[in-house]
């Protein structure tokens, strides 16, 4: 029975199948909002309101010819898309929407799971760099270098911003952090600055405008994905979709008060809050132009990092004041 339960958990809900459906829905939402902000239609014809368009795109890519360049490091090149999808799916299992039971810490909810989550969210970036490097294309190589350069910019502010609510809640477990803020919703306002910093950092992590520098198509063709095609590209795209869900879920859990109310109402909270975060991310995407790599790094260190530090200081001071 336990085995069956675990299998169900991994494969159906909230495992692969659910993640696939929900992340493609989120992609549809993102695309539709982005299109509407630009006075366009967005996906329209596949399914009702074009809801099935991301799934159709996914299967279309699966059916396409899969080209592996002669000069590529074949082992890495082939295996990395699957690894990156596995990593972000694992991160998804740690979200406190399916494991909200505070009393029972299990293998998907334990003290320190927020650190594991941050670690798992950093991994796809490194995988992208490896993927770019192993395809040995000039444009990919430049893209890979840009991925790493950017990582050094946004990662520190992101960590600082996400950890300060945890410090205030005095816990390293996502479910407990959520529960803390559900009990004292007013304290959420303290973390507003951190939320903004984390939002911008997530935008950079997901490589969306203004931080789509590693795959800026007008500059370096496909950037990191130049040589990827067919199934592997489909997996990478799915990775980004799942990462979008996980990152917005993480922000919602930490900054927006989590998902109270058990499995069902909690899920409604989850959907509403992630879509809200995705809407904000789409808005940022529509509002800005792509900036240059040197500007990203200087922006991250001159603006984002100090803001995150201020947030951290404020949190620590408040914590001392409260106790």
């Amino acid at each position, binding site marked *: 029975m336990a085995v069956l339960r675990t299998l169900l958990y991994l494969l159906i809900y909230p495992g692969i199948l659910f993640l696939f459906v929900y992340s493609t829905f989120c992609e549809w939402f993102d695309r539709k909002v982005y299109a509407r902000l630009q*006075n366009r239609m967005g996906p329209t014809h596949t399914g009702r309101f074009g809801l099935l368009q991301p799934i159709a795109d996914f299967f279309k890519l699966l059916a396409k010819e899969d080209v592996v360049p002669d*000069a590529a490091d074949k082992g890495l090149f082939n295996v990395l898309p699957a690894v990156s999808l596995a990593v972000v799916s694992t991160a998804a299992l740690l979200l406190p929407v399916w494991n909200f039971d505070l009393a029972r810490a299990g293998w998907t909810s334990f003290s320190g799971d927020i650190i594991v989550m941050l670690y798992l969210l950093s991994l796809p970036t490194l995988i992208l760099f490896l993927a770019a490097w192993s395809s040995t294309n000039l444009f990919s190589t430049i893209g890979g270098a840009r991925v790493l350069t950017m990582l050094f910019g946004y990662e520190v502010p992101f960590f600082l911003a996400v950890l300060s609510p945890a410090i205030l809640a005095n816990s390293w477990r996502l479910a407990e952090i959520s529960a803390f803020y559900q009990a004292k919703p007013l304290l959420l306002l303290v973390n507003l600055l951190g939320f903004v910093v984390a939002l911008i950092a997530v935008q950079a992590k997901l490589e969306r405008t203004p931080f789509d520098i590693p795959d800026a*198509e007008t*500059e370096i063709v496909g950037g990191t994905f130049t040589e990827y095609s067919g199934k592997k590209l489909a997996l990478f795209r799915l990775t980004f979709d799942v990462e979008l869900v996980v990152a917005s879920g993480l922000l919602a859990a930490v900054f927006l008060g989590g998902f109270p109310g058990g499995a069902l109402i909690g899920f409604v909270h989850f959907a509403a809050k992630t879509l809200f975060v995705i809407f904000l991310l789409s808005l940022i995407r529509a509002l*800005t*132009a*792509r900036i240059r*790599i040197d500007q990203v790094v200087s922006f991250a260190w001159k603006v984002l990092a100090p803001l995150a530090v201020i947030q951290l200081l404020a949190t620590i001071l408040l914590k001392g004041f409260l106790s």
Partner: protein
Amino acid sequence: MSFQIPIGPQHPALKEPISLRMTVDGEVITDADIRLGYNHRGLEKLAEEKTWVQNIYLTERICGICSHSHATCFVQGVERLMELTPPRRGLYIRYLVSELERVHSHLLWLGVAGHEAGFDSFFMYTWRDREIVMDLLEMISGNRVHYAMNTIGGVRRDIDAGQKATILEGIATLKKRSEYYFGIGANEPSFVARIAGVGLLSKEQAIALCAVGPVARASGVARDVRKEDPYAVYDELDFEVCTADSCDVLARVVVRVKELLQSYRLIEQMVKGLPDGDIVVKAPRKAKPGEALSRYEAPRGENTHYIKSNGSDKPERLKVRAPTLANYPATVVMLRKGFIADIPLIFAAIDPCICCAERAVTLISARSGEESIVRMSDLRRRALDRSKYASVKGNAVWPF
């Protein structure tokens, strides 16, 4: 680490094939080289085999965006050779279309600049509003791209009172929108960060390298054929030559937006002052022997056509100089010391319109970095080999 990256002949930032060879050191460009010829159609040779009338449409097809410019430039020259004076109403309509074309071209460019900088919302909105002027052009001429308004001795289609009102209405909307977009372009921090101080071309360099059009004007060179050599109706109209002094891509944006506003003024003057009368005079089939040099300010800069006639119904020689060719030497200078990320913006800032041809493809081997020139036949053979190795899927069948 210094290496070469090929931008083009096929590249997402380029709408037409051209090869830019960049030597980069990390993210910084140390040297640039331009290779042309991917779009060469032998047009000047072909023009010698076509009659004057046929050549109007041939020159119109030199470029898609500034189709009216080349045809007008050619027709101006031929009218000089044939000693024709087109009726004033015809001239007004001809240059009305050319100003509308300038509006459409500059709005198009503004959108492209936004897209090259990754500012897709800006691109979508400017192009949405560009539809207004496209609709006006469609209403006047019947088609969106090749207006085919010119004929030797005048224009082919007249405009009526209702159309005049529609044009004025559309221009009023566009004026408001252009001012708004100028505000956005000059205020959005991420966009300004990308275009300010990028692609510098000093005034001295612009003069020495014979830059034309908005590129020259953005470097402070007030070179505009409409003022220098006012052809046809331009000496009767009131407008200013727009220049900027900051010499970068931002200056080119500023110049183009200012020119948009000047064009709206010109269009209003032309529509309101449209004289009565015929729109065309009958043209002979043959031109007297002689030569004419026709200059015209296209949206991208000066068009120069040198036309030589030998007395027959075909030109002896037609030399076409499109503005983009004049701006290439300046582009190489602008690209140096820039970032890789600036390549599309700097290159787009000259509003390139590429027309030239080559039947060889340059491949860079990923392993050795060696370059090899592959002839078209070899390439075709390779493609055939490739299809042999690929699994046989049979003929593609349309699933529905």
